[in-house]
């Protein structure tokens, strides 16, 4: 058993590569998704009903889709339409599109729960349109939805493991290679699980910090 762990630790290089790939894939796609979701959330409450319905339809479809299905569609079906991208592009784009839908829906929900008077106070003090959203509404709904956004970020990290099926060398992919070469499945997976746990608890830690901010800067 100890000897098996020694084998796994001896393979620290591929495991570290996989770990770092997972970290930057998740950080980049999480950040891009969050930024995009701010714009999508504005569409979700647009006064133009055609725009609002189209955006809500797209968000609903994406949320009803298992992430693996989306990945297969992007990676296997788009080439049939002569749209061919690298596996990295497909993987990142899928994560971004999928999580933008979730983040946008979370922001829309938080907006719906924001007291109407907050928006009204903004209007009474000279805000309208995008300025009203950016200065008055967005900061409040980001604070209010911090824990839910954090949960979705953790789901993103776990979904990123699916990227191995389109040959992206993430942590799961590398761990699978190590265990296949040396046939030490238990020890390798244990190490991989510990590394995933490290990423997720870091996110948890950040979310708890945000919750402390929310207590002071939130509605009572």
């Amino acid at each position, binding site marked *: 058993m100890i000897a098996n762990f020694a084998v796994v630790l001896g393979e620290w290089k591929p495991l570290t590569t996989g770990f770092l790939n997972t970290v930057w894939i998740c950080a980049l796609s999480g950040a891009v998704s969050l930024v995009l979701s701010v714009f999508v959330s504005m569409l979700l409450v647009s006064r133009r009903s055609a725009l609002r319905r189209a955006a809500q339809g797209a968000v609903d479809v994406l949320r009803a889709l298992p992430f693996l299905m989306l990945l297969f569609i992007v990676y296997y079906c788009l080439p049939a339409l002569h749209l061919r991208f690298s596996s990295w592009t497909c993987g990142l784009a899928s994560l971004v599109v999928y999580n933008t839908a979730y983040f946008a829906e979370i922001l829309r929900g938080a907006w719906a729960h924001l007291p109407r008077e907050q928006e009204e106070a903004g209007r009474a003090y000279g805000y309208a349109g995008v*300025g009203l959203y950016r200065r008055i509404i967005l900061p409040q709904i980001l604070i209010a939805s911090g824990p839910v956004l954090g949960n979705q970020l953790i789901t993103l990290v776990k979904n990123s493991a699916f990227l191995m099926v389109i040959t992206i060398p993430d942590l799961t992919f590398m761990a699978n290679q190590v265990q296949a070469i040396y046939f030490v499945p238990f020890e390798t997976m244990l190490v991989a699980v510990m590394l995933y746990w490290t990423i997720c608890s870091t996110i948890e830690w950040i979310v708890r910090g945000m919750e402390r901010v929310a207590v002071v800067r939130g509605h009572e």
Partner: protein
Amino acid sequence: MSEPRGHAGHVVDVRGLGKSFGPLRVLRDVSLHVAAGRTLCVLGPSGSGKSTLLRCINFLERPDEGAVFLRGERVGFRRTPAGRERPMSDRELARMRTRIGMVFQQFNLWPHLTVLGNLVESPIHVQQRPRGEVVAEADALLDKIGLRDKRDAYPSRLSGGQKQRVAIARALAMKPEVLLFDEPTSSLDPELVGEVLAVMRDLAREGQTMIVVTHEMGFAREAADEVLFMDEGAVIETAAPQRFFDNPSTARVRQFLQRFA
């Protein structure tokens, strides 16, 4: 045909305002005007349309009939070069609202900003005045309402009375031409009402133009230059406070005042 212009000597001039919510007529032909430096108190039973009247003055509600003028300029409409009037865009309307301060019953401070942040938010980001100047004025306002020590606190850490004083300072920070108060003490614990009324009394004395919807009869009697009484969406009586309280001319007002005697 050209629309009548508002009276330029009046800061606020309201003419024939009407508003319905579905079948319910909330305002019927309401007219009033407030001259510079004067305080108008609007009294009346709950549901008489007082709050709706205030919300129509800054167009948070769009009136169905009538017109509101701010220093002779029509609120919510803009004159085209051809001399016609067209409704303002959201942005134009927002810009005009910075000239009308509003203090809400529920304070509606922005919880994500500190006390100072609440005061300087609109002057810096909407009125685009220089930060240094705005912050210095905000500090002076905080001194005036006695809350300089709460400058960097968040609203969640303040009492109701402190919140409402900050909300008044937030309105003043925009240097508005008129301040609208929508029942500013109605959601406060009784022991906190006094500190808010004291700030408002000072403002009235300093010549800030104000329209105050309130149930505080004592405040209306002392601080108002004029009292307007509404019932069922209509103006029943307008009078100087002394005359209004001591010798009202309508039976409806006498009946209303008896409940406070």
